[in-house]
């Protein structure tokens, strides 16, 4: 139990470190407003967690601060100029309705960040999908002067990615404040996979599914452009690291996780291709929650069957030993 708790804390720490680097990048592009947004989300999450745990008559421990990582993920999916009250409401929804109603971190069903994002998408879609250009810093209480569509929207509509590779790597294009720095995301993915803090199977599944279909049925004139765009745009990389590969949600066994990720990648690509649905991977990841749960149920049954056969073997071995010992003693 202690080992499990320690592992959970290390995973949370790893995730938070990578999220902090993304937040730093967001601060570089959008200024203190994005940091305030992140602080509001994290603070609200901690408060909501505290209040809901008290109402559930559970002790608030340091482990319950894992909700702050979900809040930071949510903040990084928002535009840097998102209204603070909407961010706070979305965070409360994520922590309370999408997580603690089902029992909190000990009984996770949905990715709280993904559920919170979709909540904002359905209630405040205009505010969610309009961004400021990078390097335009808006004051904390200022209204943004000019809002533009994201580069993902442009790519979905036209299939063209009018951004240089260098700018793509650094995330110097309009989009969610923390989910565009491709280089940082790739590094984060590699580090987290090696440290087993995310599900490698699920991550590879999403990337494979999206990549394969983007080459087979390209969105752009060139297959390479389509592959590049499909992986970099629409928060695919970000969601692959922090939402789909969340070890609390994804199936434990690598091959189940791979197929889980693969189907999410494929279906979200199809939605982007046929309906120009921005950030479809987040929506599909929530819709695939029953599939993840189904896989987990299957894994439990397999584990149970293995345990039973193992204990049956042990029992047989147990019966054999006394007879041999008796025979040896007799001799």
């Amino acid at each position, binding site marked *: 139990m202690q080992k499990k708790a320690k592992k959970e804390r290390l995973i949370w720490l790893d995730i938070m470190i990578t999220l902090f680097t993304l937040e730093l990048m967001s601060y570089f592009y959008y200024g203190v407003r994005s940091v305030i947004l992140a602080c509001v989300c994290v603070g609200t999450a901690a408060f909501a967690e505290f209040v809901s745990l008290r109402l559930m008559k559970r002790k608030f421990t340091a482990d319950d601060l894992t909700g702050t990582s979900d809040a930071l993920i949510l903040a990084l999916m928002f535009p840097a100029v998102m*209204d603070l*009250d*909407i961010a706070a*409401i979305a965070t409360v929804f994520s922590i309370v*309705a999408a997580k603690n*109603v089902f029992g909190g971190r000990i009984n996770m069903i949905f990715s709280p960040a993904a559920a919170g994002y979709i*909540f904002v998408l*359905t*209630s*405040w879609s205009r505010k969610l999908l309009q961004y400021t250009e990078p390097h335009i810093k808006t004051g904390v209480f200022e209204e943004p002067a000019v809002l533009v569509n994201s580069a993902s929207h442009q790519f979905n509509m036209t299939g063209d990615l009018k951004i240089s590779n260098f700018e793509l790597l650094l995330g110097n294009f309009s989009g969610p404040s923390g989910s565009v720095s491709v280089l940082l995301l790739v590094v984060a993915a590699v580090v987290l996979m090696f440290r087993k803090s995310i599900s490698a199977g699920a991550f590879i599944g999403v990337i494979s599914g999206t990549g394969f279909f983007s080459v087979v049925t390209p969105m752009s004139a060139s297959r390479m452009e389509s592959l590049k765009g499909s992986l970099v745009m629409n928060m695919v990389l970000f969601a692959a690291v922090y939402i789909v590969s969340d070890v609390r949600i994804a199936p434990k066994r690598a091959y189940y996780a791979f197929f889980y990720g693969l189907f999410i990648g494929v279906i979200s690509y199809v939605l982007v291709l046929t309906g120009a649905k921005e950030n479809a991977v987040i929506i599909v990841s929530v819709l695939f929650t029953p599939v993840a749960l189904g896989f987990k149920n299957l894994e439990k049954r397999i584990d149970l069957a293995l345990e039973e056969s193992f204990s049956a073997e042990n029992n047989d071995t147990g019966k054999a030993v006394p007879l041999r010992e008796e025979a040896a003693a007799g001799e």
Partner: protein
Amino acid sequence: MNNRKKNLLDGVLGGNIVLSGLMVISPVIICGDNLKNAEALIYAFSAITFLSVLICSFVPKKLPYAAKVIIYAIISSLVYIPVKLAAQEFYPESIARIGMYYPLLAVNSLIVFQTEAKFFRMKRAEMAVSLIFYILGFDLVMLLTGFLRELFAYGTINSKIVDVNTLISGLSQPFGGFIFLGLMCGAYRAIRAAVSKKEAGRDTDVSDK
């Protein structure tokens, strides 16, 4: 006497058909997004249910279960006609507001199933009083749901604009109804458990004295 009183009042709080019995939830989820819809639903549900259950109480009890269920459904389908005609005359906007859920209210599980399980085991006078309280229970839930969802989704109360800073338009949608009702059920259960615990503690104190 206290137990009898408790049984009669059960329908409002302890045994609320929506929050406790999870019956008739579709209209609450879909149509309960503003007060005017809630009022229309309250009229339709109250009239149809009260009249249908009263008439159904005269159906012979010795008939097979399946036959009784069909007869109850037919009776409520017939009661629906004059209720709707009266609505067309005096409350025409309610029909457009509720739409398909108007006729669906006529075959709600309170009429078709709960009558057998609960009401028809009581004497007719007691049944009528208990039924009124069950209907009141639904009405209260409907009003509360309509009020809160309208306030936070549209920023209005009974179509009058109120100063609400941030509106959550998702609350007006079916998914908002699902989540809102789920949270309301949970809150209701928590309050009911707390009240029962308090009453149990009080009863124990009394018996100890």
